[in-house]
């Protein structure tokens, strides 16, 4: 397929080779007369090159665009994503017009008005009406683009609906960790970066009762389809950026400055697999802010599923306290009874005495 692009390149190469050869001939014949001649050798050839490059370039760009489309991202899987895409292609469509006109004029004029003997250029220093036209027309087009862009931008960045599913995603060198608010209270507990340790990777503050049923996952994020999802984004060490290409979602993760982004995914992973006819398709979360050696591989799987399977998955996840019962020691005395609910029965007894105990061994972290 792209062999053809390579062929186009080859054509260019051959063309330039021809030009080289021709120029050399012209050079030999023209070089001898008086050195005061100001018209450089090969003026005609260079003029012709503009037309040649214009035509080949137009064909090459059209062709390469048509053949690249199959590699572009599939139709966006979120509501705002399709709006952004529509706006993008609409703007690109509008901008293609000046792209073609301007480049055509540059190349065509260069060829048409190349030096001719005994010909004189027109003395044409200004024309206020013309200048006014090409100040006002771009200004109007810009106003249109600004308006549509501004509408989309303010809708996308507006406050998330109240019923949005809130999920926290934390970037660190070099993976993402998601934290869910848990099935019982559906509220994310507080956090504090000073509480971070090898098990408590996102610094969950266990003195906040909302944190008792929170659970984390370092490898995949599940979200329900057709419901607003609000990502609360944090970074632990350096800048990262949450990028979900198929959802058209991107927002930086900044240490010390929590950010957010909400969107409504409306195609499940299964939908996409059948749509693209690719049983291995998966949504992916990537990092787009350079963060060090592993920047290119901070991958997290994203699974979009229907409400029922999402609820089921959530209920199957072990809460943080279940995984590391020894952290019960960090829960204040008055809340201990409440926290005990989240501790598996067999682990509850030893956890009381040792806080540094066995938890470290079966850590699921991917440090």
């Amino acid at each position: 397929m792209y062999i053809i692009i390579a062929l186009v390149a080859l054509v260019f190469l051959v063309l330039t080779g021809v030009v080289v050869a021709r120029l050399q001939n012209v050079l030999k014949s023209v070089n001898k007369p008086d050195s005061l001649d100001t018209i450089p050798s090969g003026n005609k050839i260079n003029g012709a090159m503009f037309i040649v490059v214009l035509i080949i370039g137009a064909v090459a760009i059209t062709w390469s665009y048509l053949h690249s489309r199959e590699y572009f991202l599939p139709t966006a899987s979120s509501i705002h994503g399709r709006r952004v895409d529509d706006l993008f292609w609409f703007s690109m469509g509008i901008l293609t017009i000046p792209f073609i006109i301007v480049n055509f004029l540059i190349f065509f004029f260069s060829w048409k008005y190349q030096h001719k003997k005994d010909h004189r250029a027109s003395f044409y220093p200004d024309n206020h009406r013309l200048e006014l036209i090409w100040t006002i027309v771009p200004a109007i087009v810009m106003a249109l683009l600004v308006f549509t862009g501004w509408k989309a931008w303010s809708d996308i960045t507006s406050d998330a609906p109240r019923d949005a599913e809130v999920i926290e995603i934390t970037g660190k060198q070099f993976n993402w960790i998601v934290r869910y608010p848990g099935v019982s209270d559906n509220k994310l507990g507080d956090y504090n970066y000073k509480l971070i340790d090898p098990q408590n990777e996102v610094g969950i503050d266990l003195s906040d009762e909302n944190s008792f049923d929170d659970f984390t996952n370092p490898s995949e994020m599940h979200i329900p389809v057709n419901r607003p999802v609000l990502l609360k984004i944090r970074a632990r060490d350096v800048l990262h950026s949450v990028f979900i290409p198929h959802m058209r979602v991107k927002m930086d993760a900044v240490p010390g400055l929590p950010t957010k982004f909400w969107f409504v995914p409306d195609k499940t992973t299964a939908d996409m697999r059948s749509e693209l006819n690719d049983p291995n398709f998966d949504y992916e979360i990537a990092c787009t802010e350079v963060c060090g050696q592993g920047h290119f591989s901070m991958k997290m799987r994203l699974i979009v599923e229907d409400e029922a399977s999402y609820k089921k998955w959530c209920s199957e996840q072990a809460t943080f306290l279940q995984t590391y019962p020894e952290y019960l020691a960090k829960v204040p005395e008055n809340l201990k009874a409440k926290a005990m609910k989240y501790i598996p029965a067999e682990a509850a007894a030893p956890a009381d005495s040792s806080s540094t105990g066995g938890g470290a061994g079966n850590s699921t972290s991917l440090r």
Partner: protein
Amino acid sequence: MSAIEGLETAHHHDVEHEQHHEAPNFWQKYIFSEDHKVIAKQYLITGILWAVIGISMSVVFRIQLGFQDANMSWLKPVLGGWVSETGKLDPNFYLALVTMHGTIMVFFVLTAGLSGTFSNFLIPLQIGARDMASGFMNMLSYWFFFLASVIMFASLFVQTGPAAGGWVIYPPLSALPQAHPGSGLGMTLWLASMAFFIVSQLLGGINYITTVINLRTRGMSFDRLPLTIWAFLITAVLGLISFPVLLSSVLLLIFDRHFGTSFYLSDIYINGEALPNVGGSPILFQHLFWFLGHPEVYIVLLPGLGITSEVIATNSRKPIFGYRAMIASMLGIAFLAFIVWAHHMFVTGMNPFLGSVFMFLTLIIAVPSAVKGFNYITTLWRGNIVFTPGMLFSIGLVSLFVSGGLTGIILGNSALDIQLHDTYFVVAHFHLVMGAASAFGLFAGVYHWFPKMFGRMMNTSLGQIHFWLTFIGIYLVFIPMHYVGIAGFPRRYYQFTSYNFTNKFMDMNMFISVAAIFTFVAQFIFLWNFFYSIFKGKRAPQNPWRSNTLEWTAPINPGHGNWEGELPAVYRWSYDYSKPGAKEDFIPQNIPYSQTLESNFPHENELIATEKAIESQNFNDQFKNAH
């Protein structure tokens, strides 16, 4: 004045020499020279050397990106330990390459190499001055740049590698040596080098501004200045306002790195340790950085546009269309350049309302840019175009400027930037509009003013071949790169195999890499032509392009003070090409209207009366004034 003062000082220190006007020795003439022409050449040659290094780096990482399985062992002699035993490029060094490529090309090649060369060379010659306002400061400017260059170059050889956080060096990555090897000594050297670089830019900029304002020859009013000088003046003002902000952000970063402050650091847990820093904001750095960073784009581009204006007018044999509109649009661009910086930060978590404001301001820039584009095209219209290599590169610049500028309208739209931010679409956009366009400005300038610089001509045919290979090559590299960006490929990725959504388009990336290598190889034609012509080129006539500006009235090899005898007086603007009725198709600026009665317009005949007054005032000749 100070140019002469400088010489005198040197003279006083030099006990052996008695005579005032005796020829300077080798060191004074070629190394610690205060002559703007020599300094310009120093900038040019240093810039070319940096360009070779910077572009070579891009070839290495293009090989990495286009040929993921390539065995790079053959680069071991150069890269040493950065290529593993199995011939793989080190991922940390990949980031270092990307970072240094950006830093070198933006600052050392396109800022110092372009502005430094042509502002220095052309300002005194085109405004009719003996030299810069302060030759000594001018010399300091170059040597601070040299010092910055030495430090930056040294950082390439540091054990832990040069700086590697991207050319924008966002903290906390750049502030924390434990976060990345490139944030260690390499980053320290980067910051030190940039501090000296900024000093150099400020010394240069103050000089350019002062010279343009104070040392214009008699009759050279602002509305007769060639557009090159307008561009250099506006560029210098931009640099003077924005570079100090970069210096302050760099200093704060140095404080965070070495003195335990928390300007940019807060809530960080790294390498098993929670840092004590709280209250800082990494976003603050981004604001400060882009307050320079965005004007920097125009610092790089405006000189190119100025050179293009001059070269296109000369070689179309037509006055530049809309001289005043060209100045107005440059002023407009320069003003807007300061109030659009946050369009680099739409998705940093900045308040979305600010995003709306900056989107609006950003898209306004399209208007003066469109005016410039259309004015260039109208200048070509009904011209009598001579395709000198300089002209070809200028035409190419206009094409690249427009093609790359249009996608800026997409990226300046905050809603669209969500998806495209930090993808290859951005890379393609700014390489076309700022990188390639400015580089074309540099080439156009070198080809056009080479005869004035070295008294010899460059080979025209080689220049034309160089143009076509480069022009086609640039488009072959960057048009496909837009497709890669639309497909969502993020920048600064060491390889694309980690994700399913990027694990495709392999042959496109390969194609881009091949095109990049092709374009790189084509530059050796220029290098050969340049260095060969310095020594062996055909001798240049005094005014090879039949141009109007003052530098072509100076001797072929202008000596100290540029003109022998009196400084030329200026009676007209520099764009009287193909004037109806005139004998030749050009009338240099120093020809009075009283000598061109056949081609004068009525309002110009009225100006004949002022000629005596212009002739008699000669305030600015540095050789005549006591100092």
